[in-house]
């Protein structure tokens, strides 16, 4: 069984926010909701200062704080390592949201649902279509799922996640500089493992002991 993971090369990232937009498009996310973000900061002091660009998404941790906090088992880790929310079981207590050190979850309430991309003009056909195609349940928590639908559909067609675009998360396929690589962390010969080994991939905020499946290289 694979364990899906991602490697992000922060030196390659040009902060185009393509991943953020592709993700919003893929999941029909309402205004103000992001499963992918790009953080931009600085480190050091002039003249030895440098710019930091970190694309951020759910880390699909193997020791996920959100899973430990969930009182109903609605948040769970699939066999392939993807952390998902079963919205039929979620009670909307938001313990997962508060527990996540990466703050990668969003509470989907009526106010979020009612947001329009063109305020005061009603929802567009695309937004209405999105509510049908990708319905979120009000009063539950939503998050990145590594585009598990794409992965599953693609694999049914015999495609390989990480190699074939149709079977790879939208944020990876959109990246114009190939800063993101997706693959199987359990496969020692996978591209993700090669990059982690060769470029000493780091997990974000490792001190929380959550064992993220997203690694950063530079």
């Amino acid at each position, binding site marked *: 069984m694979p364990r899906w993971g991602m490697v992000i090369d922060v030196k390659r990232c040009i902060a185009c926010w393509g991943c953020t937009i592709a993700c919003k498009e893929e999941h029909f996310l309402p*205004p*103000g909701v992001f499963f992918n*973000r790009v*953080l*931009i*900061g600085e480190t050091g002091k002039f003249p030895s200062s440098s710019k*930091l660009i*970190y694309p*951020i998404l759910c880390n699909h941790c193997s020791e996920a*704080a959100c899973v*430990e*906090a*969930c*009182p*109903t*088992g*609605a948040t769970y880790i699939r066999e392939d390592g993807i952390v998902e929310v079963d919205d039929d*079981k*979620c*009670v*909307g*207590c*938001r*313990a997962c*949201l*508060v*527990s*996540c*050190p*990466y*703050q990668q979850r969003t*509470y989907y*309430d009526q*106010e979020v649902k009612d*947001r*329009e991309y063109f*305020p*005061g003009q009603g929802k567009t056909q695309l937004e209405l279509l999105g509510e049908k195609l990708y319905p979120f*349940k*009000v*009063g*539950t*928590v939503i998050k990145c799922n590594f585009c598990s639908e794409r992965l599953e559909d693609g694999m049914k067609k015999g495609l390989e996640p990480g190699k074939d675009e149709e079977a790879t998360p939208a944020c990876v396929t959109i990246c114009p500089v190939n800063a993101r690589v997706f693959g199987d962390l359990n496969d020692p010969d996978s591209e993700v493992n090669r990059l982690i080994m060769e470029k000493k991939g780091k997990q*974000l*905020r490792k001190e*929380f*002991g959550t064992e993220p499946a997203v690694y950063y290289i530079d």
Partner: protein
Amino acid sequence: MGKIHELVQTMFPPDGSGLKPYEWMMNPTRQREWIDKKGIFLWLAFFFSEIGAGLYFVSLFYEYKAGLILGWLITLFLGGLIHVLYLGQPTRAWRMFMKPNTSELARGMWIIGAFAALGFLQIVTAGGFNMVFNTIMAILCLLIISHGFATMNVIKALPAWSSTMVLPLSVISGIWVGQQVLQLMAAVSGTAGFASGMEIWAEVFFFAYFLCLLLYVWGTWHASDIGKESIKNLTNEELLKISLIGVVGLGVVLPLILTLIMWGGDTNGFLIFLRLASVCAGDLAMRFVIMKSAVYKPLI
């Protein structure tokens, strides 16, 4: 235009509580889900559960049935109900009973369930005040008093909540407020001697509460940089008045003055009432600022 402005206000309120894309998790970022908007229910639920269970706990020692009944009712009907109202899907609250091995929240549901059933039995049974019952109920009460802050305490991402002193502070404040409610009940029921006799415990719990509060601030300040940020937030523009007037003024200074006035058991009903009101306001303020000031560590 108005609608756009409204949306922008909703997403990025001028009080700074909203997300600013360039600040989000780049600076210490405040937790919002358990205190802002509907999160206020959780703050109230923790408070009512605490004072209800605190009252029940202290009543056990005095075998004071009216205190048991009131404590039981407050815990279940104010604490429990408000807890459920906070949920995004209240009708699914029963699901939390099904997975007691998952989290503090789920275990809390079982504890409250056991408290409801055994407490009811203790209240309706003629010989309810026996050693076994009292011990079990006392343990359940302590677990309920600390339940709110215990669910916060396990969240490692927020150092202000995972501070060592959070649980002792919670337990002592619960017993302190519960003791105050019972003392007022004793005073208004005409048993002045009983109320006067309880004053020694008021003195003890007041100083224990004050000590826990100081240790919480000191411990969190020294625990980590982010803990220090959270403590600094207690005096930011938004929380300064609540911290000073609520936590310090009403939670510590006024109760101290009233305790000194009634020192040695020279109590009267009005002063006990005044101290109870002050202590409740101080406790609410203390819980509010602790919940509101906690921040996450920046990601990069």
